[in-house]
């Protein structure tokens, strides 16, 4: 297939390229970091609408109706639908998309299903970066539908510009099922299947509960009958207006608002040739902590066929170095130790998380846990640095905001 470079196709909105970009990020493939960097200048246009609520609330049916409404306004809409994965097998049935059949075939609609793969918060681990792909490739609206069963499924609030929480009609029981956490994050509340008995009572109960909330934000409580299209236009108006008012790209601002430490870590990581040569990515960092990731490739393997210990050490050491340098003072490692617990194979994805144990004027110690994606702890690393008086970056570098991700 002779064609333009993938990136060019992607930025032109080619459907296949968009899907492949999402896969690269979802599966943490090499090149994900490059991709995210390339997309960065194009972010911030899309309005991101989050939809959550207990299973059975009618989320997918509502999303289906919303898609139709938005498409009718001549807009391009991307949808990310998240379903839970089985804690036992890791597999999942991604069934949300099937309920969006009415509009899923429309040319201006793009739907992607994700499973949580064990990640908490109701989202898949890289959902916000996947939303970035849709944002950067020209979708006007991105809808993220999540699992919303309990108090902790609130990660959607960090990503969405407007957060819709969906409640089915029912008497007190249904509301008991809606934990406080979910209600707190709602920018808009919706009572679905409003033609069923109990809908009015639910509507009233929600309004009452809102009055008891801490912040006095004006949260509308709307009613919809998605199968008939009732209330959908009003909901779309409310969601888009809210996003416009609060500004598009709440998730981006949050990233940028991360501490200077995080930016510093990102900058430092970007200028480490050895770490990059091994294929190590820094995926997170902040004051006194850093996380690096690596997928064990063929060239990381030793003569016994397993991952070379030096590679694992390097991964842990990279996190250690970044965490210890995150404060801005140049820190040099003076002692490090690693213990290997479990064999690591080619293809395994490893994550090293460095956390600060202690920090004084001259010395600081860190612990790094290296885990495999199935949760297994494969190695434990500890290290000590000597903290010098010098800075690890030139002054100019600390004033310009980092481009790309932390």
């Amino acid at each position: 297939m002779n064609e333009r470079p993938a990136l060019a196709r992607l930025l032109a909105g080619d459907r296949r390229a968009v899907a492949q970009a999402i896969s690269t990020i979802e599966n943490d493939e090499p090149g994900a970091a490059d991709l995210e960097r390339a997309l960065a200048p194009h972010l911030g246009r899309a309005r991101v609408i989050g939809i959550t609520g207990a299973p059975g609330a009618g989320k997918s049916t509502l999303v289906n109706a919303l898609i139709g409404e938005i498409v009718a306004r001549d807009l391009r809409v991307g949808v990310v639908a998240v379903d839970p994965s089985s804690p036992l097998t890791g597999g999942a049935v991604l069934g949300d998309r099937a309920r969006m059949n009415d509009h899923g075939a429309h040319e201006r609609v793009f739907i992607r299903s994700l499973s949580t793969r064990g990640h908490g918060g109701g989202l898949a681990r890289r959902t916000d970066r996947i939303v970035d792909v849709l944002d950067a490739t020209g979708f006007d609206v991105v809808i993220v539908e999540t699992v919303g069963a309990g108090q902790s499924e609130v990660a959607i609030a960090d990503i969405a510009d407007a957060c819709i929480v969906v409640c089915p009609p029912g008497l007190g029981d249904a509301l008991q099922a809606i934990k406080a956490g979910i209600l707190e994050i709602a920018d808009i509340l919706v009572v679905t299947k409003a033609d069923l008995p109990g809908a009015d009572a639910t509507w009233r109960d929600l309004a009452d509960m809102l009055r008891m909330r801490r912040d006095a934000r004006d949260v509308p409580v709307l009613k919809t009958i998605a199968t008939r299209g009732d209330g959908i236009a009003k909901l779309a108006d409310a969601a888009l207006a809210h996003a416009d008012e609060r500004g598009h790209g709440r998730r981006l601002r949050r990233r940028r608002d991360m501490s200077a430490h995080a930016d510093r870590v990102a900058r430092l990581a970007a200028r480490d040739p050895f770490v990059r040569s091994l294929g190590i990515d820094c995926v997170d960092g902040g004051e006194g902590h850093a996380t690096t990731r690596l997928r064990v490739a063929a060239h990381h393997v030793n003569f016994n066929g397993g991952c070379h210990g030096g590679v694992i050490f390097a991964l842990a050491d990279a996190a250690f170095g970044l965490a210890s340098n995150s404060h801005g003072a140049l820190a040099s490692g003076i002692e490090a130790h690693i213990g290997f617990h479990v064999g690591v194979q080619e293809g395994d994805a490893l994550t090293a998380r460095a956390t600060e144990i202690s920090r004084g004027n001259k010395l600081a110690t860190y612990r790094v846990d290296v885990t495999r994606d199935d949760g297994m702890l494969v190695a434990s690393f500890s290290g000590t640095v000597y903290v010098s008086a010098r800075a690890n970056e030139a002054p100019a570098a600390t004033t310009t905001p980092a481009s790309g991700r932390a």
Partner: protein
Amino acid sequence: MNKPLDPVTLSPSAAGERWRREYAEQIGRDRAIENRSGITIKALYTNDDWDGSRHDADLGYPGQQPYTRGIYPTMHRGRTWTQRQLIGLGTPAEYNARLLSLIEHGATAISLIPCNSVFRGYDMDEVDAELLGTCGVVVNSADHMHTCLDGVDIARMSCAMNDPSPFTLLAFLLAVAKRRGVPFASITGTSNQSDYLSHYVANHMFFRIALPGARRILADHVDFCTRNVPRWNPMSVVGQHMQQAGATPAQAMALTLATALQNVDDCVARGMDPKTFLPRFTFFFDISVSFFEEVAKFRAARRLWPRLLRERYGVDDPKSLRFKFHAQTSGVDLTRQQPLNNIARVTVQAMAGIFGGLQSLHTDAYDEVLSCPTEFGARIAVSTQNILREEAHLTDVIDPLGGSYYVETLTGQMEEEIARNLALVQDAGGMYAAVESGLVQGLIGDSARRFQAKVENGEQTVVGVNAYGVNETADDRPPVQGVDDDAIRAHLAAFAAWKAARSQATVVKALDDLARAANSPAGNVFEHVVTAAEAGCTHGEICATLRRELGFGHVQAIV
């Protein structure tokens, strides 16, 4: 004990103890056996399990409460079961040829199964041509129905039309009757599979309009037929789909009874008197190869249904309490491997249905699982019924298994299991609500998975598949019934020409009237379907109009 024991002088309980002991000693490792419905099956049933003191309560006599032994006093000895073979293939002309051939070979009633395109509510020119006529006959108009039934005396022969809401096939049949001068009062037959809920839940065939619309049209249909086609059975509640989708026999029966109760509720809510429509309620079941379980299932249902009607609606008119049913041998038990084995399977299934007291039977052809049956296979299926009746003399004795310790015990246990499952559905608000919420689909899916697991791990043997297999090549398999593509092409061309020659004004007016009726709660939609059929409207046009007015709806994708 060294002395030989004389059984005659032993008391019954001592003999029983002796048997138990010897059985335990000699059986080696005994297996815990459960039938498909989850009921534990013992090695031996005696008068400790069931005895004649329960005769009046459990058995009674044929044609009387509790109806266990049969709904009529004479049962098959008086009138043999109807041999109603499902026929459907290709074009109306091909259907007619097959029908006449099978009648010659012993089929005594008609059952017409339409093409999948008709199932979905489309005319032949709206779907991929490759899919036409492969599993059923392409009937889109009254003219087509006329060709299907050419040379058949519809005043004498019972016609089952497999076609629920909006029942266009029946409408076409009535149009043909009118044309031939046959009064509606002479038309006998059944709106087979008129049960929209089972289609929605289990096999998603005949899914043309949203649930609420289908529900309403069914009630309209019952109303119209009760008044205008008095010998027609408008209600056929289906257990076959759910059992084929994986429900256990007891579950499938329970869900069917729940659907029937829902339908009665809906008709009563419309102001109809149960005595007017209950006599024309019929049921349609699957018969699996689990022989005794099926016999017990049917006997249990025959006893349970009248009790439910009495309790819920205070009905005691005998004509309303009869559990009339048609049954079909289960295609799900048939195998592609060593297909001739299917003849044996169908025979066992048919016998279970006959001993279960059915009124009407369809036996599958052995090549059913390979494609639409060939004439050769279809003839063997009919012959099987002839052999059972005339060589094995299965019509000589009414309820021959009645009084068997095993069969009576199992009938009681199946009745309990059916009632338990029924209560689950009733607690969820009735069948309609339970289907809307997905509860029913979940139950069926779980059973399907459990059964599949048993087959995969070898616990349930399937001859030729997970045991007793042989290497087979394509040559070992019988030739399949193909579709005559030329005939289909000609059928399409003729259809196009016929449509162009119709009076558009008449058609448009009939469809407008139909749409208006759909939008008015007091209108009888089926009545207008009948008028539309006479006016030359096609099946697709009628369905499209109703879809537009009543909504298409969605099948839930539940895994």
